[in-house]
């Protein structure tokens, strides 16, 4: 077993633990924190089902963003869609037999790497070209884009320029899953790709990537608009006791 394999094996265990633990903690915090008042941005659905539909539209077609700005929507949506397909495609390194739908994606996978890059390039360009977005962009915003571009670019490099031994790579990851470590191919591009991915996993729970779980907990989007029909209380508002107030006598 090479030192490299050991380092990467440990790196991925650590990254996975931080990602899972960090996200679980954050989700627990969001779920535990009460929302004392009703604050849906209206017009809002008046039923739970309606809220579910609103939420699905929000996370699949980015409805609010579409209303807001067509360029950001286009770049952002293309990026996220391609990322999603890529993530699913990568399942083939972790599943044996490969899940049935994964091979179906090979039609898309031709575009998705480039799609990610194009989307990221558009978003990054806005950070330089649009003065308002330039103003609000901090170092971490640029670094995050650099990280994602690095991941996409290294992935594309392996796909089209310097192929890596995918059979050995799969053995490595399955080995991680079943705790029987297998050697990792020592290709520099692959090592870079994996290192960047593990960094992404580790920063996820302490960065703005928290928008992913956050959107589901956003009260302006997930609350039902029915404050008159049903009395809402939570947190400090649940401690209100009006029973002594104003009763005659």
């Amino acid at each position: 077993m090479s030192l490299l394999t050991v380092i990467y094996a440990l790196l991925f265990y650590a990254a996975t633990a931080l990602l899972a633990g960090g996200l679980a903690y954050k989700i627990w915090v969001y779920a535990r924190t009460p929302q004392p008042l009703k604050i849906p941005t209206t017009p809002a659905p008046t039923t739970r089902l309606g809220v579910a539909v609103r939420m699905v539209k929000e996370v699949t077609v980015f409805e609010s963003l579409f209303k807001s700005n067509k360029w950001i929507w286009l770049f952002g949506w293309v990026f996220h869609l391609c990322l999603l397909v890529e993530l699913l495609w990568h399942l083939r390194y972790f599943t044996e037999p490969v899940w049935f739908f994964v091979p179906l994606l090979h039609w898309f996978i031709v575009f998705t790497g480039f799609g990610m890059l194009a989307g990221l390039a558009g978003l990054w360009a806005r950070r330089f070209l649009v003065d308002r977005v330039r103003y609000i962009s901090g170092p971490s915003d640029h670094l995050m884009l650099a990280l994602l571009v690095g991941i996409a670019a290294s992935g594309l490099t392996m796909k089209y320029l310097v192929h890596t031994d995918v059979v050995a790579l799969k053995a490595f990851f399955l080995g991680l899953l079943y705790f029987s470590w297998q050697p990792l191919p020592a290709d520099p591009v692959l090592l870079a790709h994996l290192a960047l991915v593990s960094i992404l996993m580790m920063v996820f729970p302490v960065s703005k990537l928290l928008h992913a779980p956050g959107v589901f907990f956003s009260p302006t989007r997930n609350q039902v608009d029915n404050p008159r029909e049903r009395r809402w209380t939570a947190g400090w508002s649940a401690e209100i006791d009006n029973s002594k107030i104003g009763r005659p006598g």
Partner: protein
Amino acid sequence: MANFETPALREYPVIPLVQEGTMAHSRPFVAKPDIQASVGFPGELVENWEQKAVVKLGELVSQSRALQVFLDSCVKCGACTDKCHYYLGTSDPKNMPVARQDLLRSVYRRYYTFAGKYFPKLVGARDMTKDVLDEWYTYFHQCSQCRRCSVFCPYGIDTAEISMAARDVMDHVGMGQKYSNEIIGKLHKIGNNLGLPEPALRDTLEGLEEDVKDATGVDVKFPVDMKGAEVLLITPSADFFAEPHIDGLIGYAKVFHAAGISWTLSSYASEAANFSMFIGSHDNLHKVAVRIRQAALDLGVKRIVVGECGHAWRVAYSFWNTLIGPFDFLDQNYPVPQHICEFTYDLIQRGALTLDKTANDDKVVTFHDSCNVARASRMGNMPGGQFVIPREIIKACVNNFYDMPADTIGESTFCCGGGGGLLTDDLVELRVKGALPRMQALQQVVDEHGVNYLAAICAICKSQFTKVLPYYKHPMDMIGSVHGLVSNAIVLNAKQ
């Protein structure tokens, strides 16, 4: 007029280029100790305020899922950057919603997140310093809490929530805003924002009865503290004597009269407004609202109807049931509370009112959707009823109605520029500049359709427009109440 330039209206609305610091000088008067005391806050900057502010901030975040999620989730996409009327009117980048949030987020990050504790430079985290506090005071008083940004943010991040939290933190360390806090203090003492005591209220209402009698020959009553009335009307106190608000109040009274429904005002709860929302203070929010529960029980009414006011309707519609419910002692056949527009619309639908549109033929009308009604509440039983119902009332009362451009009304409505506790003379420059997008849209219907009447259902909007319309070369009496139109059109005693 003051020493600033009214922004020029253009042929098409444009998004201005960033110009740093254009509004850095704009800040409202700070509350004096006696005012602070009247709302339960320290009178001046407390010892150790930096630490106390940070602790308070942490406390607020731990009590609000909204803050927790909003402070973590912003990706700096920039979608909100051109959505705030204060940015559009001032070009000051700190008036872009995300930048305004960042003023507070930077401090939150520094003390409460891993990245901010260990890599402050990377994520723009800042220590709580006097400069930061001053910046908060400046720019969190340039947000009217209109929620336009939250419509357009992919995660629904509502800068209004963050402004409220920031103001609450500032109040807790002794740096309150004079305008809002003075008004809340008056309400605690007397029962309305104006500090209008009961005898004065009665006088005013008697005067109104005489005026209406003179004008119409009909005995329309304006009852106060009438036990056993069917409806308790809770309306902003501006309706009692400010123009054009008062025409709205006359309109409500005529509607009640025509419908034959007994109603009353309360001298104890003579105010719909609840400025405590603007300063994010739960205690004050509850304390102000609870007077209304008390009054409803004391007077033994069956229904509560709320007059034309934006943020007041938000508090009533969205918060009352939580704050001062349950309303099991009221008639469950009607929504509790009910908006005066819902009330009037219902009567129109049932054919219970006779309306003569020609009485308003001198007017070409457009309607300003007040933000708090548009984006923080509802009317009727379907989403978006808050846009339909007031327009239907207007259309039932006038022959000439034209909407402003679609991206400036409905859920995308632009704030009047004076909401959220900013309706004070020490912020006139901000108010005039913040009104720019609304004035731009108004100009368009003035040019295209000859609009000469801007109808609104918010006391703050009405006062704000009265002030800023002249800056944009419109007569100040162009603004009016929706129920002012009803008042003109309604034919009293027509059915007898």
